C-alpha cells in the first residue's frame, strides 16, 4: 500500500502562503465597532423562542417591549433598537451576542431564563464590557460568577427557598419533607438551600429523588415519594418538568398522602398548563404574581391585560421591570458609556412592581420579595385566570460577604 507523500516543496508552499495570510491577519487589530455615542441604541434581547422554554421567550419579549413603549421608544433622545434573537442554547447565545455586539455596537443585553445560557452570556459580557441583565435563577450569577457588567432581577434560590419553606412550616404545620430535584445547577442550588433551611428549622428531609432535565417519566420518583409518606413533597423543578411531574403525581394519587408544593414557578403560564383541578390546594413559590398589591403593579397589570388579554405572567414582569430599570439607568447616567450606566444603576432605589427595589452594589442582585401563593379550588375562583392567592412574602438575601461574589 503506497502512502501519500507530502513533498517538502508542498509543505513549504503551504506554510508560506499560510504564514503570509496569518501575518497579515495578526497585523490587523480588532475590528472597529460602530460608534456607540450617536444613532440608535441597540439592545439585544436573547430569549428562548424555541425549545423547552419557548413560552417564556415570548412573554419576556412582551414585557421588554412594554417597557420600551412606556419610554416612547427612545432614551436620551435616541431611538431604541431592540434586536431579538433566539437563545435556546449557550453557544448560539454567545454567537448571537458576538454578532450584535460587532454589527451594531450593542452594549446592552437582556438574557433569558435558562441559567446555563445566562451564565455563558454574562461571561461574554464581562470579557467584552457589555452590560447583561439576567432573568435566570442560579445563585452563581450574583455569586461566584458575578461580574461588574451583569445585573440580575430574579431572587436567587437562596431567597426563594427561605420564603417558601418556612412559610409552609408555619402555615401548614408540616414537619417532614420529600424533595424532587432536577439534575441541573439550578436544581442543586434549590436542594442545597432547602436542606439548610430544614436544618435551621429542625425539620426532617426524608429523602430526595433526582431526575434529568426534561424528564417525562416521573413514576419512579413519585413511587418513592409515596413510600416515604412525608408531610410535604416539595418539587424543586421548573417549567415543563414541573407540569409533567405534578400531573403524574396527582395522577398517582400523591395528594392523598402528602401536601404538594412547588418551590419555583413561572406562575400564570404554568398554572394555565396544569389547570385548576390539578393545582387545587398546591402551594407555590413565585417571583411575581399579578395580584401583588402595589399601585404600580395594578396599573401595569391592567395595561398589560388591555393589550394582551391575559394577566401579566412572571417572566413578562421580569422582562418589563429589568428593561425599565436599565433604560432609567441610561437616562440617569445621561450616557451610554457602560461604566457610567453601571454607576447609575447600582444602589439606586426605585418604585417597582413589587414595591421598592434596589440592585445592591456588592453583587448587582436586585433586592425584592419572593412570594408564596396557594392555588384555589374551582369554587374559590372569581375568574377563569384567578388561579391563586398570595399567602405571604419576604425578602431574604445572603449578606454581601457571604455570596462568594468578588467584583
Amino acid at each position, binding site marked *: *500500500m*503506497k*502512502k*501519500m*507523500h*507530502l513533498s517538502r516543496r*508542498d509543505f513549504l*508552499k*503551504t*506554510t508560506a*502562503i*499560510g*504564514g503570509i*495570510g*496569518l501575518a*497579515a*491577519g*495578526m497585523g*490587523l*487589530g*480588532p*475590528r472597529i465597532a460602530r460608534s456607540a455615542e450617536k444613532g440608535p441604541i441597540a439592545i439585544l434581547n436573547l430569549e428562548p*423562542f*424555541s425549545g423547552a422554554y419557548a413560552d417564556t421567550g415570548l412573554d419576556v419579549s412582551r414585557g421588554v417591549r412594554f417597557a420600551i413603549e412606556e419610554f416612547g421608544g427612545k432614551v436620551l433622545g435616541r431611538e431604541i433598537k431592540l434586536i431579538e*434573537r*433566539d437563545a435556546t*442554547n*449557550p*453557544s448560539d447565545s*454567545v*454567537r448571537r451576542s*458576538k*454578532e450584535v455586539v*460587532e*454589527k451594531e455596537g450593542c452594549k446592552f443585553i437582556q438574557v433569558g431564563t435558562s*441559567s*446555563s445560557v445566562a*451564565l*455563558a452570556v454574562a*461571561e*461574554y459580557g464581562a*470579557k467584552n464590557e457589555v452590560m447583561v441583565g439576567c432573568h435566570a435563577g442560579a445563585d452563581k450569577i450574583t455569586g461566584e460568577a458575578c461580574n461588574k457588567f451583569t445585573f440580575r432581577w430574579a431572587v436567587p434560590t437562596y431567597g426563594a427557598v427561605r420564603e417558601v419553606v418556612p412559610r409552609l412550616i408555619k402555615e401548614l404545620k408540616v414537619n417532614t419533607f420529600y424533595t424532587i430535584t432536577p*439534575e*441541573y*445547577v439550578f436544581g442543586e442550588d434549590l436542594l442545597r438551600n432547602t436542606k439548610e433551611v430544614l436544618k435551621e428549622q429542625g425539620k426532617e428531609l426524608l429523602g430526595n429523588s433526582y431526575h*434529568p*432535565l426534561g424528564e417525562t417519566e416521573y413514576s419512579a420518583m413519585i413511587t418513592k415519594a409515596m413510600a416515604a409518606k412525608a408531610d410535604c413533597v416539595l418539587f424543586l423543578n421548573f417549567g415543563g418538568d414541573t407540569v409533567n411531574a405534578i400531573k403524574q403525581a396527582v395522577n398517582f394519587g400523591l395528594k392523598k398522602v402528602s401536601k404538594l408544593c412547588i418551590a419555583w414557578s413561572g406562575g400564570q403560564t404554568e398554572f394555565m398548563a396544569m389547570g385548576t383541578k390539578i393545582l387545587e390546594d398546591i402551594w407555590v413559590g413565585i417571583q411575581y404574581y399579578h395580584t401583588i398589591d402595589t399601585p404600580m403593579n395594578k396599573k401595569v397589570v391592567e395595561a398589560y391585560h388591555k393589550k394582551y388579554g391575559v394577566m401579566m405572567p412572571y417572566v413578562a414582569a421580569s422582562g418589563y421591570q429589568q428593561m425599565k430599570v436599565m433604560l432609567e439607568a441610561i437616562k440617569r447616567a445621561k450616557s451610554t458609556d457602560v461604566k457610567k450606566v453601571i454607576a447609575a444603576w447600582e444602589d439606586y432605589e426605585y418604585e417597582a412592581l413589587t414595591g421598592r427595589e434596589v440592585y445592591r452594589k456588592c453583587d448587582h442582585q436586585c433586592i425584592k420579595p419572593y412570594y408564596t401563593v396557594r392555588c384555589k379550588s374551582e369554587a374559590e375562583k372569581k375568574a377563569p385566570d384567578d388561579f391563586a392567592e398570595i399567602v405571604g412574602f419576604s425578602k431574604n438575601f445572603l449578606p454581601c460577604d457571604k455570596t462568594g461574589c468578588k467584583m
Partner: protein
Amino acid sequence: MKWDPWKTIFQKNLSLIFILCIFLILPFVLPYTALATEILIFALATIAFDLLLGYTGIMLFCQASFFGTGAYITGLLIHHFHLNIFMTMGAAILGAAFLALLFGYMATQRAGTYSVLLTLAFNELIFFIAYQWKTLTGGSDGLRDIPRPNLEIPGLLNVNLFSETRFYFFALFFFIFSFILIKKITESPFGKVLQGIRENETRAQAIGYNTRLFKVVAFIIGGIFMGLAGNLYAMFMNFVDINHVAFDTSGKIVMMELIGGMGTLFGPILGAGIVTLASDIACAYWERWLLILGAVFVAFVLFARGGVWGLIENLIGWVRVPRPEKE
C-alpha cells in the same frame, strides 16, 4: 522558453489560491467576523466528513462525537491547566483520533446500513456520557471559562488572540493547512483506494485490498480533522456546549455536505458557507427557518444530489468527480 515558477505554482493550485482569496476577504465582507470563523471551522469539519462520505462512501452520524471530543479536551486542558495552545491542539486531535479508531473499528465490522445505525448509537452514547458526567463536562450547562490562549511558541512568539479578527486568521492558517493535506490524501494512491471502496467495495477486496483497514484509517483521518475543528471551536467560543456532541451537530454537518456537494472538497466549503449564512440571516426573520432548511435539504436530495457544487459544475460543464450514484 524560460520556466516561470510562479506561473506553474499558480496554475497547479488555482483552486487553492481561489479559496484562499475568498477566505482572506471573508471577514471583511461579512457583517461580523465571528460569522466568518463559524463558517471556517465548520467547513473544516465538513471537509473531513467529506473524506469519509464523499470519497470513501462511508455514511456516519458520529461526527459530532469527534468534533465535540476535540472541543471538550481543549476546554478541559485550557480551563484546568492553561496548557500551551499547540499542545492543547495536539491533545484534542489525539483524543478525537483515538475515538475515531474505536468507532471506526466497530462500525466497519460489517458493511451495510447497520454500521450507520451503530455510529448513530455511538454518538448518543457519547452525548449521554457528556451529559451525565457533569463534574467533567459541565453537563447541559457546558464548560465555561475557557480563556483564549495566546499564540505562543515559547521563546519565539507570544501573540494575543483575543480579537475576533486575529483568531480568524489563526484558524484560517490551520484550515488551509488541513485543506491542502486532505486534498493531497484524496489525490494520493491511498485516496484512490478509498474512492475504489466507495465505487465497489467487493471489487476492491477482490483485488486484494484490506478494505476494512483503509476504512478505519479513513475514520482516523476524519477524526483528526474533526477534532481539530472542535479544538478551534472551543477556543473560538471560549465555551463548550453539550450541543457540540449532539446529534444536531452531526445532522448539521450532513446537511452542509449534501447541500454543498459530496466528494468534491470544495462542495463542503460551499455547504458550510451556505448553511451558516442562511441560518444566520434567516433566524432574524423567522424562528422556524429550520423548516426551510429542511425543505431545501429534501429538494437537494431529490433533485440535486451533487449539491450546489454539482450544479455549478453542470453549469460550467467541467469534468465531474464521480459521486456515489448506483449501489
